[in-house]
């Protein structure tokens, strides 16, 4: 713990802290361009020069390159340092265009700040400015090389931190150019961060381009709802439209970055298809009419069939506030539910996964970056939880061993071993790598007799995992039973929705699941259903199929799902951007997303916010939606129910007032329920259906975000192992017709040895939800021309 003095103030920092960070801990922000806490020192920009007056280093040095040491006396305002930094800005501005008025970075530009604060107001260099031609880097990042100050942040982030090699520096000297070999979309699923880390307007956010100045936006800290990790974001809204999402630093979760799914899937909130008005029997109506109708209809059901004939369904995408309100509503009415999961097995699995975290076994995303061995069991990091891949890369860069045991093909930007195994083989593989003793060759061959191609890899991995001091098991909830008793292993479940953990905490142990409700509807026991922010088709095909058997269906949502179309009464709800809310992530960490702007039809579409004269008196369009929790309360009022005052603290042990900015872990975890039986081989012949996410537009929100949807693969792909494809007489690239229930889906076959034998990998899309657990030749057929 070196002690040093910076600008006359003593400070003690951990060993290895660079002086620039030590100064920052005192609130002294030394100017910088290339230094970034996540990327470390590059020494390229020379902007952070300070004067070292005493100690082991003397003279003008870069504060990012020098680790703090005992006895250092540092002066950031020494005249020599100030002069030098002024020269650096002059040099950078010698070639930087004066296009700030039309630059999207203008106003939150580090170069602008340093130019102004450094007092560089007059250009004395008489030469011409250097110019470049730009590239098209795809839909997310706008390239303006003329503005580049060559801090190398982008290349270091893209290549070193993320591990992608299609973007980087070219040429030398004053011609250095950051780009791709040829124009084309950036390959990295983390490319959006380039806009955040670029200190000038060279790489800016393309979808948000020309939408607004950053300081004109309404901004609020938010939490990403596009997978279960709960990365911290900043939502920026302008003219009643979220125009941009940025990464927010949360050292315990996502660090400084987010993935492109989280950054570019916000469009569902302002989508033209978003239902913003209440409906009664499919006809737009006012909120109060619809609420009254919902009350009447549900009341009628209760009157005719008793309170047990009404059920409530919620989902893993709603906030804890909504889930709690649904529970309170159901309790007040004596109704069934709420059901949050497709079936009991899934609910138990998620509860078991959370229960396993007790006793300090939970690991955060940040802690995974420090693990020395990581096994991903039934989790495909880049698709199930993209930021997990970035943490795994940081672990791998520090020397960690990474293995992915999963039936789906896996690509990761790091050295790792993929063990493509069908779901029923995963428990066996897990046992080989999570034991206290390294499994020997005989044990490996016994456990996986039919996969000799994996034996050498497992023989390499087993001793590494046995020797690891800080290993982590990343697992899908279905494999919660495989969490080893060995306390060495940290645990990191990856769940099926942004608030799946919340749903599991809120749900009663004996709460019905969607399948149970579907059975009850089929049996005529349930006649009225409140479906809140849940799409029956995606959640439980059986429930979706049972909906027509209802007397009344009340849907609360902000997405135009098939259930919305089927609703008898529809009540529009607010999104997380509008209502705010608390989400519980995969490690049971509660985080609060603040509301950024009230709901409303975006001005860009409303078309009436343009040049005056305009009607100032009219009601703003699209402002009907209310928070789902508020709608529950009003509905209870309409029906004369006495809704209990319930806080999610009752379920999580952490109340709204206790949620810290970096999140707070739930203190009430499910009391170790019986872990679900591990996946077993399907009875009889057939291929186990394994669902695979894509980076974009397979999550509940992304499917309704136009920009995310535009990135989704154009054609659906079914993936098979070569042996299984041969068994079905199908070849790579063939056009297929897939029968799902009474529908046919067109797809293409991709054959790869990276798919587990015995597995059929299909997209996780609602249309595919109706596939049975195992399929065969009658489902996968060659498409007849």
């Amino acid at each position, binding site marked *: 713990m070196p002690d040093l003095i910076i600008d006359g103030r003593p400070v003690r920092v951990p060993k290895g802290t660079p002086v620039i960070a030590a100064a920052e801990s005192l609130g002294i922000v030394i100017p910088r361009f290339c230094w970034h806490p996540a990327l470390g020192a590059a020494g390229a920009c020379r902007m952070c020069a300070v004067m070292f007056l005493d100690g082991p280093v003397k003279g003008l040095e870069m504060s990012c390159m020098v680790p703090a040491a005992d006895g250092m006396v540092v002066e950031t305002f020494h005249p020599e340092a100030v002069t030098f930094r002024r020269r650096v800005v002059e040099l950078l501005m010698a070639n930087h265009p004066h296009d700030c008025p039309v630059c999207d970075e203008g106003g939150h530009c580090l170069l602008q700040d340093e130019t102004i604060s450094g007092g560089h107001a007059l250009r004395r260099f008489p030469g011409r400015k250097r110019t470049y031609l730009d590239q098209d880097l795809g839909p997310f990042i706008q390239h303006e090389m003329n503005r580049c100050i060559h801090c190398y942040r982008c290349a270091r982030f893209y290549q070193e931190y993320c591990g992608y*090699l299609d973007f980087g520096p*070219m*040429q*030398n000297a004053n011609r250095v150019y950051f780009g*791709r*070999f*040829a124009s084309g979309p950036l390959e990295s699923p983390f490319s959006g961060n380039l806009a955040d880390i670029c200190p000038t307007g060279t790489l800016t956010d393309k979808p948000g381009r020309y939408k607004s100045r950053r300081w004109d936006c309404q901004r609020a800290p938010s939490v990403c709802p596009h997978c279960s990790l709960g990365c911290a974001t900043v939502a920026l809204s302008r003219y009643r439209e979220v125009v941009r999402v940025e990464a927010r630093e949360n050292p315990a979760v996502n660090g400084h970055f987010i993935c492109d799914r989280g950054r570019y899937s916000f469009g569902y909130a302002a989508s033209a298809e978003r239902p913003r008005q209440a409906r009664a029997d499919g006809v737009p109506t006012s909120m109060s009419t619809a609420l009254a109708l919902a009350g009447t209809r549900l009341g009628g059901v209760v009157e005719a069939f008793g309170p047990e004939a009404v059920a409530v369904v919620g989902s893993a995408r709603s906030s804890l506030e909504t889930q709690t309100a649904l529970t309170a509503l159901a309790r007040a009415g004596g109704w069934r539910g709420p059901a949050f999961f497709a079936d009991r097995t899934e609910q138990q699995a998620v509860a078991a996964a959370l229960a396993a975290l007790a006793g300090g076994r939970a690991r955060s995303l940040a802690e995974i970056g420090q693990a020395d061995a990581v096994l991903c069991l039934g989790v495909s990091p880049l698709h199930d939880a993209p930021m997990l891949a970035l943490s795994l890369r940081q672990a791998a860069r520090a020397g960690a061993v990474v293995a992915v045991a999963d039936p789906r093909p896996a690509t990761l930007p790091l050295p790792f071993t993929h063990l493509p195994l069908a779901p029923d083989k995963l428990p066996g593989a897990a046992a080989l790598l999570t034991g206290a003793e390294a499994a020997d060759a005989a044990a490996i061959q016994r456990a996986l007799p039919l996969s000799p191609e994996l034996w050498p890899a497992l023989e390499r991995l087993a001793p590494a995992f046995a020797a690891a001091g800080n290993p982590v098991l990343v697992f899908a909830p279905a494999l919660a039973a495989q969490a080893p008793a060995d306390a060495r292993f940290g645990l990191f479940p990856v769940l099926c929705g942004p608030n799946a953990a919340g749903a599991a905490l809120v749900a009663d142990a004996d709460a019905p699941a969607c399948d149970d409700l579907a059975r009850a509807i089929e049996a005529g026991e349930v006649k009225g259903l409140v479906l809140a922010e849940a799409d029956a088709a995606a959640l439980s095909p059986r429930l979706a199929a049972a909906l027509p058997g209802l007397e009344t269906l009340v849907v609360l949502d902000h997405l135009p799902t098939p259930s919305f179309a089927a609703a008898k009464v529809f009540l529009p709800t607010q999104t997380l951007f509008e209502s705010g809310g608390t989400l519980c992530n995969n490690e049971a960490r509660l985080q609060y997303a603040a509301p950024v702007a009230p709901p409303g039809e975006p001005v860009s579409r409303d078309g009436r916010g343009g040049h005056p004269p305009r009607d100032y008196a009219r009601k703003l369009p699209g402002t009907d939606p209310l928070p789902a929790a508020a709608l529950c309360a009003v509905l209870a009022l309409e029906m004369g129910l006495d809704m209990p005052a319930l806080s999610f603290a009752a379920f999580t042990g952490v109340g709204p007032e206790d949620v810290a900015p970096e999140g707070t872990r739930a203190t009430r975890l499910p009391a170790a329920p019986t872990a679900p039986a591990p996946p077993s081989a399907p009875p009889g012949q057939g291929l186990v259906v394994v669902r695979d996410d894509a980076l974009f537009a397979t999550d509940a929100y992304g499917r309704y975000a136009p920009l995310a949807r535009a990135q989704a693969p154009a054609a659906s792909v079914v993936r098979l192992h070569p042996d299984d494809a041969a068994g079905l007489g199908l070849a790579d690239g063939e056009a297929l017709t897939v029968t799902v229930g009474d529908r046919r889906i067109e797809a293409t076959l991709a054959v790869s040895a990276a798919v587990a034998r015995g597995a059929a990998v299909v997209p996780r899309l609602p249309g595919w939800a109706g596939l049975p657990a195992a399929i065969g030749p009658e489902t996968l057929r060659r498409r007849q021309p």
Partner: protein
Amino acid sequence: MSLPDAVVAEIDGVIAAVEHHKREAAVDVMYALQRHYGYLCDEAMHYASKALDMTTLELESLATFYDYLYRRPVGRYVIHVCDSVVCWMFHQDSIFDYLCRKLGVPPGGTTEDGMFTVLPAACIGNCHNAPSMLINGRFYDRLTAERIDAVLAELRQSAEEPVRCK
């Protein structure tokens, strides 16, 4: 256009020589392709990328860094005219100008017949024989206008048709 067996064998050979550290062969592979194609066309870059398991961007960031790898077409003979300070002292300027005028090309330009490209070069390590130039690996010392004329004439005599990327 597929590569002749001899070129493929040469590339495989340089990669095999550094098998544990394939990346070390990057420059040699690009040299081999450049000798074949005359310069590093996109096709050559894609071939090198596959042969070396490096992305085209990685190779591009090397090819464009170095001055003896050419990403644009050059002539059969690349004339590297030393323009460092000792040669400059011996009126390298006028020799450079003379070459450009003689060949009818701007600095960096290639003659219409595809024979010569004139490039300024950093000190080529022949200062005691200044002014000096380097053509395809050979030094030409103590240049004068007459000597340049003779060298160009000699090279024109021996030129073959270069292989070009289509």
